[in-house]
């Protein structure tokens, strides 16, 4: 029988939303293929993460707890994931299309001689059986693809799926005797320089405020984007141009080559809306463009366009939002 192995993503002992969106994709696929679902948790000191995932309808939660898995390095994690998949008989291995999933999962596919569909946004029926829908050409077109090998590897785009809810019940937790073989990987973790922020992360935020090159400098970006994000409890994003010009950290970038978001509300402030940027936000529920112009590509996807200089519009907008909040 078919079995889907979902790779858990976690940080600081907590399950990440990316795990649950992948699980949602897996449930949709399981309904079409008649599969059961297992979960794999890799890392060092991850018993708590495994425990936290026992109520989501998986038959088994496999735990590969090993000091050499502390960092998610592609060769070691790739090997252990493939080993777990083989030992539990999974024919589909699924992970999030986060930078971690993108880095590791092709190595799993190569080990298992599996075909791989990246960054899928849907599970579809095709004339050749269940397949996946995925954006190509920066989302200009959507492709339905099928995988012709017996084993499939897939990464799921977080913004395209809901976070799977708990189903009750209790999965078996099984320790997996992992052999990461770190020395053979010829890979040494040196450092991680994390972006620190108390704001919601881009994949979890209901509202995203994103700034672009029109904000002119790091000071301009901070002066405009931060107060609006604070007023709304929003996450902060940016165009590539704003990141390239050093206005904000790299992991703020939204788009074809950055993060893909689909919040309830997206503010594009001083962003023109190049196709590569739209690729990362055009599925937001409501889009607001704040721009000095009204004829930019962003205006064609925005539900509401406010024409004006961000440096004067945003302070006033923040004041009025504060007044609405105060009035309750």
């Amino acid at each position, binding site marked *: 029988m078919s079995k889907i192995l979902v790779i858990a993503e976690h940080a600081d002992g907590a399950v990440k939303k990316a795990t649950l969106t992948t699980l949602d994709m897996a449930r949709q696929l399981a309904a079409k293929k008649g599969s059961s679902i297992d979960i794999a948790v890799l890392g060092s000191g991850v018993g708590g993460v495994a425990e936290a995932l026992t109520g989501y309808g998986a038959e088994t939660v496999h735990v590969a707890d090993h000091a050499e898995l502390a960092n998610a390095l592609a060769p070691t994690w790739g090997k252990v994931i493939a080993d777990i998949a083989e030992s539990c008989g999974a024919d589909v291995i699924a992970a999030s299309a986060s930078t971690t999933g993108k880095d590791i999962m092709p190595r799993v596919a190569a080990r298992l001689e599996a075909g791989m569909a990246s960054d899928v946004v849907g599970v579809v029926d095709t004339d*050749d059986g269940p397949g996946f829908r995925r954006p190509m050409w920066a989302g200009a077109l959507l492709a339905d693809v099928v995988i012709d090998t017996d084993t499939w590897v897939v990464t799921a785009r977080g913004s395209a799926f809901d976070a799977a809810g708990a189903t009750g019940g209790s999965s078996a937790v099984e320790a997996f005797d992992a052999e990461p073989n770190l020395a053979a990987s010829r890979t040494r973790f040196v450092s991680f320089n994390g972006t620190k922020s108390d704001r919601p992360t881009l994949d979890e935020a209901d509202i995203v405020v994103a700034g672009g090159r029109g904000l002119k400098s790091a000071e301009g970006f901070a002066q405009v984007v931060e107060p609006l994000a604070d007023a709304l409890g929003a996450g902060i994003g940016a165009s590539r141009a704003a990141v390239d010009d050093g206005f904000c950290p790299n992991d703020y970038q939204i788009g074809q080559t950055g993060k893909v978001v689909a919040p309830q509300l997206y503010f594009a402030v001083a962003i023109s809306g190049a196709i590569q940027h739209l690729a990362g936000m055009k599925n937001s529920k409501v889009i607001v463009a704040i721009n000095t112009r009204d004829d930019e590509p962003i205006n064609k996807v925005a539900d509401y366009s406010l024409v004006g200089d961000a440096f004067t519009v945003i302070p006033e907008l923040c004041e009025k939002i504060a007044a609405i909040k105060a009035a309750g």
Partner: protein
Amino acid sequence: MKILVTAKRVTDPNAKLVIDDDGSWIDDDVEFILNPFCENAVECALELAEAHDAETVAIGIGDEEVQRYIRQGALARGVDRGIHVDAEEQELDSDLIAKILKAVVEREEPDVVLLGKQAVDGDSNQVAQLLAEMLGWPQATFASDVKIEGSEAIVTREVDGGLETLAVTLPAIISADLRLNDPRYASLAGIMKAKKKPLEELELDDLDLDDEEPKVRVVKLHEPAGRSAGVVVADIDELLNKLTTEARVL
């Protein structure tokens, strides 16, 4: 030292794409460019070669047209020589590209293979990682900084949540992100020289692949649902009114 770098041809991102009659591919009568990420990879290869006195070799896989992009995109910028593997692009998937690259790596024995993190047509982001596993080599993907120190490459990577730095022992696979560098322009002299640089042509048959079948197939392309046109609001009050009462997102 020897560096192998990729030159992939992609449709111009500004081109209007039309789905062809059988529905599973695009009409390829459009403009093409060198994959932007390959431009970063080529630049990185040239900078490393300048610092470490390395030979550079560019490889492109696809139909005859790809040779133009190898010459203009890589050789004209300064890469020493090229290799073109002739293949029908539509019948390639990332797995088969990686297998072809593996065969070329085994012939050329480079110390570093530099690729783009993704091809901006398929947006798969797989080939570098597949190749690394097939060769049993370490990888450093999504690179925004690359240095070679002794037998290691020290690579800073753009990942969710920040920047990660890895040290990988050569030979290794590196995939370039866009902030790795600013690709140089080809000089006129470079363009002239490129015409005479060696460009080896290989057929798939020359590579003795154990399998030439793609594993993933596009069965159908669609246009995504468009968004209906919105409105220009008169002022902040109207915007807030719409957001609270019409869209109900505030």
